[in-house]
């Protein structure tokens, strides 16, 4: 399986996302922000960082990059996409996911290991986890508070689109302790925590995050996922 990792100017966790793809047994493919080309990959990861310096709003400029221009229709036709941190912000700006990420409650950057509870959402990125499984994964963000209007939040809950929640309460003020959500089809997932930094206890708090990457590899192997693109 070939998984694209997009590098924007200011992307920082792109090498980490590529390493996680490698650990999961897939081939990472580097995608460049100004190329109107997804290079035929089977899934795409938008990594963490400060794309375009986070000028204007986090993700607001990246959303208009040529590579995202290609990604939007592909994602709408079923290409699996995982946005982590800044990637989540870009997916919201691109309207592939609802809501927005705003300044943390407390207005400071927060880096901490947090516990996440996997909810019942059915996505190819989380199929390897059991419902209610608790993961230890780091968060590191300055604008990580997920917000949406009440109707949207209700709908996310009703349709089972909350992917992970902060087990011990959101450290950043996220609505309803939401740490990650998916689109209606489940192929597009946005996460504020960083599973790519929890793939090996040597360099992270646990290996709990590897499941996001092995899940997509298993889903691809099992179902010809991605063929719809």
């Amino acid at each position, binding site marked *: 399986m070939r998984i694209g990792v997009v590098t924007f100017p200011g992307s*920082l966790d792109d090498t980490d996302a590529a390493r996680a793809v490698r650990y999961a047994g897939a081939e990472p493919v580097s995608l460049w922000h100004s190329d109107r080309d997804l290079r035929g990959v089977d899934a795409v990861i938008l990594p*963490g960082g400060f794309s375009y310096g986070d000028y204007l709003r986090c993700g607001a400029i990246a959303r208009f990059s040529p590579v995202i221009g290609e990604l939007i229709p592909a994602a709408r036709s079923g290409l699996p996409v995982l946005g982590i941190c800044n990637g989540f912000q870009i997916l919201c700006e691109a309207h592939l996911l609802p809501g927005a990420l705003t300044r943390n409650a407390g207005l400071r950057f927060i880096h901490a290991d947090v516990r996440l509870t996997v909810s019942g959402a059915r996505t190819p990125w989380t199929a390897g986890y059991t419902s209610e499984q608790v993961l230890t994964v780091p968060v*590191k963000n300055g604008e990580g508070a997920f917000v949406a209007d009440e109707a949207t939040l209700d709908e996310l809950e009703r349709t089972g689109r909350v992917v992970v929640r902060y087990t011990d309460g959101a450290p950043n003020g996220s609505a309803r302790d939401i740490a990650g959500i998916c689109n209606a089809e489940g192929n597009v997932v946005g996460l504020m925590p960083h599973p790519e930094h929890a793939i090996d206890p040597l*360099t992270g708090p646990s290996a709990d995050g590897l499941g996001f990457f092995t899940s997509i590899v298993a889903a691809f192997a099992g179902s010809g996922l991605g063929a719809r693109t």
Partner: protein
Amino acid sequence: MSGEDTIEVAAGTPEVAQPFKELGLTEDEYQKIRDILGRRPTAAELALYSVMWSEHCSYKSSKVHLRNLAPNADQSQYLLAGIGANAGVVDIGQGYAVTFKIESHNHPSFVEPHQGAATGIGGIVRDILAMGARPIAVMDALRFGPADAHDTARVLPGVVSGISFYGNCLGLPNIGGELAFDPSYAGNPLVNALCVGLMRHDDLKAAVAAGQGNKVILFGSRTGPDGVGGASVLASATFGGAEGEDRAGDDGGRAAKRPSVQVGDPFMEKLLVECCLELYAADVIEGIQDLGAAGVACATTELSAGGDGGMFVDMDAIPLRDPNLTPAEILMSESQERMMAVVKPERVDAFLAICRKWDVEAVVIGEVTGDGLLTMTWRGGTVVKIPPRTAADGPVYQRPYARPDTLDALQADGPQGLHRPADGAGLRDTLLSLLRSPGLADKRWVTQQYDSLVRGNTVLAMPEDSGLIRIAEETGLGIALATDGNGRYCALDPYQGTQLALAEAYRNVAMTGAVPVAVTNCLNFGSPEDPAVMWQLAEAVRGLADGCKHLGIPVTGGNVSLYNQTGATAIHPTPVIGVLGVHQDVRTRVGAGFTVDGAQVVLLGTTRDEFGGSAWAEVVHQHLGGRPPAVDLDAERKLASLVVAAASQGLLASAHDLSDGGLAIALAEACLRGGRGCVVTLPGDQFTALFSESAGRAVVSVTPGREAEFGALAEEHDVPAAILGVAYGDTLTVGDTFQIPLTELEAAWTGTLPAIFG
């Protein structure tokens, strides 16, 4: 012709009065410039000399002492480039080399904490980048006035947010550092930033402009009016008192200096880093220099002084943010995120194409010439024409120095008479009050604002004894880094205090299982015009040189920050020492926390009754006097090699060095870090055993079943090892003296900084 002050105008108007004093030059220095040029300098030349001859750029007061550090460096097997280059380069094996350096940004961080600290990170990162290395981690050593002082509430949160903002956006893990508080830093905080970079052996780049006809390219941000005179005005002069009253001859207080602080753009720096690395990989660069203090003046002077010819610069080609800048201002501007490269003409197109890919503006501003002169034109006139070495080398001063006459009284006022707790309850309270003190309390309020994980190779970071970064995924090769300094010890004895800082950083690196191999230093002192301060500086450098020689590790570079004082009062002399270690396999790393139930707890080293300058004397008695702990570098070396050997054999479950607050604080930290208590019995006087700060000690827990092996290894290394007890349970229990539940320890430790800073 413009109305500008060209060399012709200058030659014809020798009588024109020039503002050399305002630019920080003395009468003698100004005359020397006139002698060198055989005429008065132009306004642009005067600006150039003033920043190049500033204390910050020329090391004119410290150079005679720093020479003592060099001979040692030449002998090291590890060193690929040493003092004089932007940063030293150390061979770590397997074809890899690392370069690391620590630098101060003290004065800018006091004037404007957020931007001052942010640009401190930016500056040191460009230093490392200019060596040809990819920057891979940063650290910050911070010192402030009392935590509850009014101004600390302004300075500390700003400094931390600046480091967080710049380092996090740059994608560099912050793997450690220091946070200390002392009244001596109240009007002059210390913000020292360290960066480490990685390269292959043959990637080393030179800061020279060689090869006649090669092009000089300025790339990165545009040049603006920010930071004009930062090196000469900010970094090389004393601040006035709190109300802004100034020394005679000083041209302004805090407010007047605010525009001297630069403003950082970490996004631009991230682009510059990736752009430079791609330029290196494409092999299109002959020489490179970062623009830091003294901006274009420094880069052109140093590149041409280091090369074999001269340099011509067309100043009209320099991209400006503000078209009204004068040539003098352009030369002195410290606008951030700029680099200068020397490129062969046939490679200029390839160079510019890579810059375009990264959206980095790049312009050819001149070329290497054969006349040995640095020449600059602006609007048709020649505004600079100097022999570059005369600006780059600068004056050297033998400042008078004298042992301060107050030192005898200070050393005589030892801690012997201070009241010591006698019973279990008193010892228990003492431990908790030390743990609660801002200098020893949990630092997560700070470190939670730093990304320590980005790049995915961080194996250990704060609050571990040192940061540990994996270099090679296949072999586990890694590097460890620690910085230490103790201004209180150095106030009592700068020679010994500096060696104690060196020994502590050396020890901290070894605790992870890494072999210490190289040293960097940031020497923070008061005014060099004060003979007492110069004596402290001389003693500190002598202590460092002797210490490094004894330990067999070279000083690979460093930085001197002078004029750290408020009015007539200098800070404690504060050399901050960084030690780099090589870890053969980070998978065998050892952490500080007790993580294994039943693991035997062993104290390594010798404990004496040593409380001069201790945390106990400070926290409980607000006392500073006597002598700092004794230094035994042989014992340090034995301890380090024991821990490294034991770690590689898998004998250690944890290792934690003893420093401020002694064994009591080390045990408490090991319990809190591992989430596990311990039950120990301490030999001898309980107070001394708990709180003495004797150097050369560590507390380890031994892998169960390997106790006899470890005992034999300790004996073989000639390191005293006392079995204290076991790691176990949820209390810190010291014999029948006292017992503290972990929850109570945790509450005492974690509450302090959030209560003060919110």
